[in-house]
């Protein structure tokens, strides 16, 4: 049975650090599938105008397509080029919730994320996605510095 590692991507340098670490792990494990996950932050409890609602389905498709083509597909292609077995997932919702739920669904052995570079008032108030993931995850989490 092969191992599975879920990697949290965020389209920035910190996501790449997570990928690099996951690659190292996968090499050590041997047969290991890498699942690159990108979460588009979205809340079902936000307030929207009627026009935004009308356009929502279209926007969602566009957001998913953009995340796939700009972040996930290049990352997966690069992993495959390096000889890894890899796959990408794009989802809408809460980052911490979804990284964990994908890992649970896939039966992954661990989640690799990078320490986020986000700072400021909002993250002090609500905590960063990484901190939330570490606190709530039911799958082992590795946070890359």
């Amino acid at each position, binding site marked *: 049975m092969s191992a599975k590692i879920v990697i949290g991507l965020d389209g920035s340098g910190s996501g790449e650090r997570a990928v690099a670490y996951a690659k190292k792990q996968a090499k050590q494990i041997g047969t290991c599938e890498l699942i690159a996950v990108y979460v*588009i932050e*979205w809340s*079902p*409890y*936000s*307030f*929207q*105008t*009627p*026009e*935004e*609602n*009308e*356009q*929502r*389905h*279209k926007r*969602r*498709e566009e*957001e*998913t397509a953009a995340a796939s083509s700009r972040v996930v597909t290049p990352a997966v292609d690069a992993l495959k080029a390096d000889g890894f077995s890899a796959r990408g997932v794009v*989802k*809408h*919702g809460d980052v911490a919730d979804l990284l964990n*739920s994908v890992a649970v669904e896939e039966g992954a052995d661990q989640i690799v994320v990078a320490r986020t570079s986000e700072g400021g008032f909002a993250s002090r108030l609500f905590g960063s996605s990484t901190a939330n993931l570490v606190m709530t995850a039911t799958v082992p989490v590795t946070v890359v510095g």
Partner: protein
Amino acid sequence: MKKLALTTLALSAAGSTSVFAQEARTIDQAVNETFAAVTGPFVSFIFSPFPGTSFPWIVMWLVIAASLFTVYFGFIQIRGFKHSIQLVKGDYADPNDAGEVSHFQALTTALSGTVGLGNIAGVAVAVGIGGPGATFWMIMAGLLGMASKFTECTLGVKYRNEYEDGTVSGGPMYYMSKGFAERGVPGGKILAVVFSIFCILGALGGGNMFQANQAHAQISSITGAYPGWITGIVFALVVYAVIVGGIKSIASVTEKVVPFMGVLYVGTALVILLLNFDKIGWAFGQIFEGAFTGLGVAGGFVGALIQVFKRAAFSNEAGVGSAAIAHSAVRTKEPITEGLVSLLEPFIDTVVICTMTALVITISGLLIVDPATGNFVLNADGNAISTVGDVSGVSLTSAAFATGFSWFPYVLAIAVVLFAFSTMISWSYYGLKAWTYLFGEGKTTELVFKIIFCVFVVIGASASLGPVIDFSDAAIFAMAVVNITALYFLMPVVKKEMNSYMSRLKSGEIKRFKH
């Protein structure tokens, strides 16, 4: 520009001797007279009484429809209430649909179109005429209205148009044309066209002029009197920036601030009620006693009742069809779920928020009671109850809240302006949907409507309350006439959907994702 506006303000506030202010008044007056003359016949038709009675047929029409839907769907507003809350919380939302419009979003979007001046000014008008007893009938109207809303919003989702580019369009015009065709009933297209015409008028009236008018009244009660067209032009420019200029940030800021204002409003009302908790029992006594006796209210018992049902319908828009447009964007495979969610709208709008306003007004003691008879004293014209300071409409609400917190009129003024603005944005969308249904989609046709909409903001702010409120009511009720006709023909469709959904919910076929 800013300097000019300030000078204008100062001049008009300085006194009536100013030539400028006199000129301004004549502009307002001219707008007023023309407007009243043009809309008069339409208004008197909509509010004409049943032959031989003084009861307007339109009020009967709304009450009978809401009662009939309540019975036909087996008191769905009570049976389905708990499930509605679960749906809004997202307990039944498929995680794979994340990123689509949720039930919560569809509900709050629709609410921001209805919660507003109807709850603040409309209730004050009703209580000012009908006394505290008006509240009881308002709650009844809200509870019954939940069934009308359920019917129209289910149909709105069921017969919406989903376009290839992923956008959706829904509303009464679509269920009229598609639903009637599906059932083999002729005339759906004609109804849809008539509805669209009234929807455009409703958007310009209640969704626009009434809002601009009351926003101006509220602002000028704080700054001192100045001509309405000034407020009108400022409002029109901001509305223009959003709906034509596409400055989404203004709209989205409003969408975020409005719910906060709503909570603040209800919260303050609750605090005032708590501070006067010794009077709450008395207030409810007044409400129940007044509900059946009339307590010598203006225009008699029937007159007061008519006003209450009018104001309730104007506030929650149940049966009007506007909500069906707003709710139709939700992502769901089951149209009935949106119907269930939408029935919370009259509950929140009328049963909760309107009742709060009515209680605060009752407790404030602003309605003058004759100590000898215990009845309310009528004003000089005999068309409303005398109030301390001779206030009515939104000013009555403002004065009532001020008895609890003297600073509240300032907060209320901001709230009224924001509520008015968000209602205008919502109604500009409803009106636009009707407009494009009639004239087709396209940049130029849409722009024409948007410009007309902005012009009416100025007219609304300049006209006096009487003609504006009459026209706004008439247009919105005309929508209800057409919409409810369609609902009668299509209600078996809703019943079939409801029975199927409820049985699948019971059997566990409808999955709950969150516990």
